[in-house]
């Protein structure tokens, strides 16, 4: 089957700044794919290359088999994008904004109205349909970006930090909508800073850093790569941490008061029974046990830390708050 996205040796330079550095990445059709990475990793640059807001410097990238430059119209017709920025037409009520967007994709007038209403109902802001964008609350603006992205019924839905700065209720509402679309066959590409979001939603996750792909795996596979910590509470703690030579998975032990923290490679649940046996064999009485799983967030930090110096440029042109900065955004000079 043709890949939804296929990037090969993709490069993008902003003057001396290399935002994408030979990125190789493929997303299967129907997949829910997460793109994680610190600020400046190149996530937004990659997305903008797909939709025509960034011109690549080198490499190849196709969407459903169509080249993003040579067959730009087919590519753009297949993509719905909900960007980080609130880049919505200020002149017209939001229902008309959605109708315009559908019209740009060749949808007939009657169908445009139906789709606009349906999209507004789906994201829960239908009663604001005659309001202009500037008069919506922050959460409603975020919902509208999703409505605009889906009004064209895209095969590939790209969500760039869709839940940045939104409350828990809205985040769950958006997840529900996105999940439903994915279940119906829409390929989803999601970038997020919320690791929990990627862990919960995505089939596979790519971690990017400095314009390169660090790894691609399922969230479960990634968490397997980390170290779990088993904390046991001892009734009569020894003066120092007992040796656990028989357990090859043990990476580190630490004794604090009556609590012995044992860091193990892989799954803590698999090691715990043998650890408890080993401690009881040495005469320790265990009163409590807790296993903390490595979070995807910790894996993420582990995989990306040390790869970037503090003086590394912000490759995707976005700052901490997701706003554009120089020199990555040439168009941003107009601001």
């Amino acid at each position, binding site marked *: 089957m043709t890949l939804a996205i296929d990037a090969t040796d993709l490069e993008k330079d*902003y003057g001396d700044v290399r935002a994408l550095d030979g990125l190789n990445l493929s997303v299967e059709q129907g997949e829910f794919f997460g793109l994680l990475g610190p600020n400046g990793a190149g996530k937004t*640059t990659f997305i*903008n290359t797909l*939709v*025509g*807001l*960034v*011109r690549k410097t080198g490499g190849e990238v196709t969407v459903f088999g169509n080249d993003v430059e040579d067959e*730009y*119209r*087919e590519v*753009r*017709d297949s*993509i719905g*994008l909900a*960007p980080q*920025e609130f*880049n*919505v*037409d*200020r*002149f*017209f009520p939001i229902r008309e*904004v959605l109708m*315009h*967007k559908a*019209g*740009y*994709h*060749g*949808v*007939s*007038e009657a*169908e445009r109205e139906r789709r606009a209403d349906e999209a507004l109902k789906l994201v829960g802001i239908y009663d604001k349909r005659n309001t202009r964008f500037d008069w919506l609350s922050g959460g409603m603006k975020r919902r509208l970006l999703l409505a*605009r992205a889906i009004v064209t019924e895209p095969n590939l839905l790209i969500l760039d930090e869709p839940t940045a700065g939104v409350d828990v209720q809205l985040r769950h509402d958006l997840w529900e909508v996105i999940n439903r679309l994915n279940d119906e066959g829409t390929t989803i590409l999601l970038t997020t800073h919320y690791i929990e979001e990627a862990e919960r939603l995505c089939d596979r996750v790519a971690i990017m850093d400095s314009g390169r792909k660090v790894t691609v795996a399922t969230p479960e596979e990634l968490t397997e790569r980390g170290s779990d910590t088993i904390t046991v509470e001892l009734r009569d703690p020894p003066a120092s941490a007992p040796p656990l030579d028989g357990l090859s998975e043990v990476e580190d032990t630490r004794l604090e008061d009556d609590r012995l923290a044992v860091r193990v490679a892989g799954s803590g649940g698999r090691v715990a029974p043998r650890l408890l046996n080993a401690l009881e064999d040495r005469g320790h009485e265990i009163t409590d046990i807790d296993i903390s799983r490595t979070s995807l967030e910790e894996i993420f930090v582990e995989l990306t830390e040390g790869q970037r110096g503090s003086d590394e440029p912000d490759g995707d*042109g976005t700052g901490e708050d997701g706003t554009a900065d120089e020199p*990555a*955004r*040439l*168009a941003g*000079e*107009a*601001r």
Partner: protein
Amino acid sequence: MVENPVSARFYTLLEREVQRFVRRPWNTFLPPMITNVLYFSVFGVILGTRIQEIQGFSYILFLLPGLVVLGAISNAFENASFSIFHGRWNEYIHETITSPLSYTEMVLAYVLSSASRGIVVGVIIAVIGAFFTPVGVEQPFYLVAFMLVVSLLFAALGVVGGLVAKDFDHLTVMNQFILRPLVFFGGVFYSLEILPSLWRTVSLLNPMVYMVNGVRYGFLGYSDVDPNTALAVLSGLTIGVVALDIAMFARGYGLTD
């Protein structure tokens, strides 16, 4: 459910662009109405009665075609440059760029909508002028042709302006320091015949001279220059600038990183 997608895409953007200025008449049509009532009152009625006839026409009648051109090109330029720059500034032009419109469709929608605003303003000014002085149309074909061409040309130049500008101030600068001097020395307020020979020759380098005289030929049947040559040159220029617009969109100039 998709019907005739090529026209649907193009017409949606064209309609959006037309609606943008039609729904705000107090911003788009009222200012040129007020300005031209003042022009006709002061230059035509108050001063004009003290100025002798030019080439057999009363000054206010001689003035009218120039003011029509001035209004049409200013509004065509302003509409295209503002719409594109405002879209870039607030980044909502991304809605268009990320859609499957061809670059030619995008440019033609911006140019045609802006030219239509220029023509509407030109008609409004002519109607206002008719309240001040009886005016007829001696050469309807030339009037229509020149109005179309000058509005399209300045709409196309407005697209360039909107793509090149890096700040709202740049749009003002283009209007005040480029457009306005060309207009004022372009024969709106006087006939080239009254200029010394040297300045008459220099004036012929000003494209505005051909526009003003072309429209004046349409209204009055009088022109300082050959209208056919003027129409051919301006048409060629318009096609060239539209081609430049399309090339700039395709290159992503001012639009993409």
